């Protein structure tokens, strides 16, 4: 080709050829990724040293694990001076760590509840499960309540009837006006729950008594308690957070003000103070004389706390959507709620998944704070076990175990969020 001549035309078209095979094997890879320059080499050597040193330090302790021992003294005797992990404490106190002081002959009830929880979550979490299974997810909370706390089956049924009452009122008055329908449904359900539930369940109990042995809240503890608070908090804080986020972006001044005040107040206060003042605060908002179950109180406070954070995460997602999406939805004639539900929220929530799951994980771990108000979560139980003469002086094993269980749950959530992000990826950018 003559470089002085600007005119040039290709005569032969170059055919596509296969990509050359990757060069070198392990050695080449290592040189490129591990020993690429003196700094990289130094870092590689340093990190390998640290990992090896930690493994060497931990190996004897772990390899000398003692599973069969009924007290720390027995453990030490078996070890005979050598260092080793005494997992016997987990084995010995296993039921207690799981269930707290739940009556042992009733353990089948929380176990069944947990198994059913998985069945109830499956259709929500995974698409492969037929959507009809969502019916089970809807009745699960009432059923789970009955299984764990026992008492009359008619109580949760009567509570569910409140939803039916609300739906009926909504259906009947929807034709008149939407505002009236929502108001009448809310008032109807509230009245039903405050006045009718006790009566209806008592009546039904007379006709056909179906009941389980009641278990008091103070007997519930361990991971059972963490999961009750965590799962309920997660399930309730997401919808509440969505409503708060929408409220904060609302153009109605009163709703906006209420949402902002709520979010800023709750976010500005440590959870632990909320937990301490739970009963005091709730007594202001609820009819006098209501005696509130301690676990219920904690669930409400944890939910409110998490929903304030959730609202801010979701607001970020909402703000990230281009205005055009709102305009297109409006121009098609979708009203506010339909536009939110069908167009805006699916996209905003998708953007917010990492933040939402982050809040969930935070909430789940925060359930350990309930020990400060006297509930027996795993950490509180660990303290109790260590106070016992048999296990006085045990330390690492309990906390490593509790940490590991929390890790499994939180890591599961994190993996699920990655799965969900991948499944919902439709932008193909």
């Amino acid at each position, binding site marked *: 080709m003559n470089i002085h001549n600007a005119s040039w035309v290709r005569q032969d078209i170059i055919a596509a050829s296969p990509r050359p095979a990757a060069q070198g094997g392990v050695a080449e890879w290592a040189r490129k990724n591990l020993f690429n320059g003196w700094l990289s080499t130094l870092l590689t050597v340093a990190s390998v040293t640290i990992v090896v040193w930690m493994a060497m330090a931990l190996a004897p302790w772990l390899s000398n694990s003692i599973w069969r021992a009924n007290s720390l003294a027995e453990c030490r005797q078996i070890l005979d001076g050598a260092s080793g992990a005494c997992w016997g404490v987990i084995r010995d106190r296993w039921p207690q760590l799981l269930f707290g002081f739940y009556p042992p002959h009733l353990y089948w009830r929380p176990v069944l509840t947990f198994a059913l929880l998985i069945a109830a979550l499956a259709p929500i979490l995974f698409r492969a499960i037929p959507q009809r299974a969502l019916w089970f997810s809807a009745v699960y909370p009432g059923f789970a309540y009955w299984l764990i706390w026992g008492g009359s089956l008619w109580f949760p049924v009567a509570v569910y009837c409140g939803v039916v009452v609300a739906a009926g009122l909504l259906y009947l008055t929807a034709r008149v006006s939407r505002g009236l329908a929502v108001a009448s449904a809310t008032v109807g359900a509230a009245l039903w729950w405050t006045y009718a539930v006790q009566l209806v369940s008592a009546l039904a109990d007379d006709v056909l008594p179906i009941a389980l042995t009641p278990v008091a809240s103070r007997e519930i503890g361990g991971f059972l308690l963490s999961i009750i608070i965590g799962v309920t908090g997660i399930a309730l804080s997401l919808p509440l957070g969505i409503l708060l986020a929408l409220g904060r972006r609302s153009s109605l001044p009163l709703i906006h003000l209420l949402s902002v005040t709520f979010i800023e107040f709750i976010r500005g206060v440590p959870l632990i103070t909320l937990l301490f003042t739970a009963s005091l605060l709730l007594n202001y908002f609820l009819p006098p004389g209501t005696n509130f179950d301690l676990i219920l109180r904690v669930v409400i406070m944890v939910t409110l706390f998490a929903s304030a954070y959730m609202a801010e995460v979701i607001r970020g997602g909402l703000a990230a959507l*281009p205005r*055009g*999406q709102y*305009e*297109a*939805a*409006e*121009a*098609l*004639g*979708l*009203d506010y709620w*339909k536009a939110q539900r*069908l*167009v805006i929220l*699916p*996209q905003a929530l*998708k953007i917010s998944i990492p933040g939402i799951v982050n809040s969930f994980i935070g909430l789940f771990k925060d359930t350990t704070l309930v020990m400060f108000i006297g509930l027996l979560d795993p950490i509180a139980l660990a303290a109790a076990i260590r106070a016992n003469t048999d296990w006085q002086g045990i330390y690492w094993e309990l906390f490593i175990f509790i940490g590991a269980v929390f890790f499994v749950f939180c890591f599961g959530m994190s993996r699920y969020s990655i799965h969900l992000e991948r499944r*919902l990826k*439709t*932008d*193909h*950018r």
Partner: protein
Amino acid sequence: MTKTLMSQASSQNYRFMLQDVAVEITGMNKWYGEFHVLRDINLKVRRGERIVICGPSGSGKSTMIRCINRLEEHQSGKIVVDGIELTSDLKKIDEVRREVGMVFQHFNLFPHLTILQNCMLAPVWVRKVPEKQARELAMHFLEKVKIPDQAQKYPGQLSGGQQQRVAIARSLCMKPKIMLFDEPTSALDPEMIKEVLDTMIALAEDGMTMLCVTHEMGFAQAVADRVIFMDQGQIVEQNEPKAFFSAPASERTRKFLGQILGR
């Protein structure tokens, strides 16, 4: 029912109803804060009429047509669309939006839904058309804009021109009586502009009432019944296209046409 809807759509000819008024704007003013963006707008659009709106950037073209489906609120004057006056009454606004389709410069397709779902969304949720019929309706209009084979894809997988045609199909699925276009081709590469304009010309030939903000003067000459020139928030001149292009009356129109047509 679908059948009658469809045949109506394909062979509808509104032109015999020319005397009917589709949009009537009288003495309308709009401010953004203190900025008087639209000044004393008077405009009457008959059914089946095709109107092209042009004018320099910032002259208020978008704002005006967005007032017609109340994406923007006007502060004084009167806007009557399809016999319904636009006030702050939400029910009336929804009623108007059902009858008025809009196509945006940046398409604004819903990226989390497939093309087919984009087209079915409003018929199913707003018009309560049964799912199966909505699907047929959507496919009918996707065929009309010549992309039925993309129905299962997501918007992100389509070219700009294809996306804009889907956006047109999505609006048509609501069976609108009036279509608004806000610079539908100005975000597109030249080779895609033609496919979108062809779609719009076909729509015009079916007798749709159209208000179209565009700088495609070829399109204006081919299909417009009337061209409106706006400047500084006012309608400066309007005329049938032939007269508008050959003998613009106002000095500002002449200057504008000189700039965009390179004369």
